[in-house]
């Protein structure tokens, strides 16, 4: 896992270099005549932090590995079990979230939410389908009614086809 740390530092270094190039070169060239009179320019802070960013990421790449303190930190990932993690399930659910996002408008809030809740629960291993469907349906409907009818916050509820049929 220590390699991962360095790879991330390298990616951050690349981001910082792109950021630095943008603030030192591109933004400098695009400054408006008005802005040249100002003491702090739009690229002043970006310049400073990009240099800090490059220095620190270089340090992270080059520094020697240290022993990390063993502690009962709840926010850290327990790496002892890392080989047994359900990577497939996690990726599946991330994919499902993207799909859900793309469906929200064309399919509408209610149907896509029910399907999202159903399939993510399915991926996690739930097999009591009838109970699951009922819970997904009730949960989605309550949230939608709360938002739409009580709070007046609009979300397109139905697919285009049904929407036009209703109206």
């Amino acid at each position: 896992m220590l390699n991962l740390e360095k790879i991330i530092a390298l990616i951050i270094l690349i981001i910082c270099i792109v950021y630095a190039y943008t603030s030192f070169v591109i933004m400098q060239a695009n400054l408006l005549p008005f802005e040249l009179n100002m003491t702090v320019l739009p690229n002043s802070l970006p310049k400073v932090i990009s240099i800090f960013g490059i220095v620190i990421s270089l340090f992270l790449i080059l520094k020697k590995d240290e022993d990390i303190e063993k502690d009962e930190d709840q926010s850290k990932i327990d790496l002892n079990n890392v080989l047994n993690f359900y990577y497939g399930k996690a990726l599946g659910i991330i994919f499902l979230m993207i799909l859900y996002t793309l469906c929200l408008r064309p399919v509408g809030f209610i149907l896509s939410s029910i399907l999202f809740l159903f399939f993510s629960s399915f991926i996690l291993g739930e097999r009591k389908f009838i109970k699951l469907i009922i819970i997904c349906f009730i949960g989605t409907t309550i949230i939608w009614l709360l938002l739409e009818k009580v709070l007046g916050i609009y979300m397109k509820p139905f697919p285009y086809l049904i929407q036009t049929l209703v109206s």
Partner: protein
Amino acid sequence: MFFNLRRIFLASTLFFSLGIASNVSAAEVDSIHFLIPGGAGGGWDGTARGTGEALTKAGLVGSASYENMSGGGGGKAIGYLIENASSNHGTLMVNSTPIVIRSLVGRFPHNFRDLTMIAGTIGDYAAIIAGKDSPYNNFADLVAAYKADPSSVSIGGGSVPGGMDHLVAAMAMEAAGADPTKVKYIPFDAGGKLNAAILAGEVSAGSTGFSEAVALAKAGEMKILAVTSSKRVPAFEDAPTLVEQGYDATFVNWRGFFAAPGLPKDKADAYRSVIAKMYDTSEWEEVRARNGWVNIHNPGDEFVSFLENQEDVIKSLMTKLGFL
């Protein structure tokens, strides 16, 4: 997080539309779907929901629904309305002065001409303000100090440099025969913070919305040096206009409604007609008074020429200031 006070002010409006008009048959327009190019709780949101509330309660429109679509400072909703024009004949989008400024500086590829202009409905004037202990008692004092040494006069505002508040300050200075490019403009991220800075004496003067300044001026905390209307505003008669002080500059921050491009003329006229009738209803008066809005009605072609004129003024000013 940083809501402009002006927007918030307009936002305190009815969200509930439970008591939708009972006599749907009498409505001239069956339904309007309002498209709001920003999040719930902002100024556009308040305008759309307030207008919809008045229209439905007065029985002019059968029902109203509201869709928020934020992104790209309003550009996303404009793009959406243009791309899906044919399926959005029942949609009205709310917008305001920034659509002119933002399309001039190229923040989004479209401009107001790409949409069907329905009507400008309400607005707010701009005001130049100073704290109660400030040495400036009228706009001439401020101009004199500015002409003596532009860098000694800092003018705060609630918009970005090159935004509305900055342009108003520059426009007023230009009308006074001073160099508008030398205005030392200090941007604040919300109207409330600008007001605090003025009371604290951090900036010499401020450029802000008139309705925002009225409350503090009435309380005697602030002086309104000038307002950008052509005649004094009834809400606060004590505030002198720029024009009467001898500076030929006026400015209105309007809010109005747009529809999809290619909207059939009869539909557009129906929308214009219900909006025109709305002004005479007590329901509208209630919404308007609650939000402190000023009626500035510009239907159809008048709206087009108003916008074109405003675009010209802003364009020449922004060119002079170096933003274009």
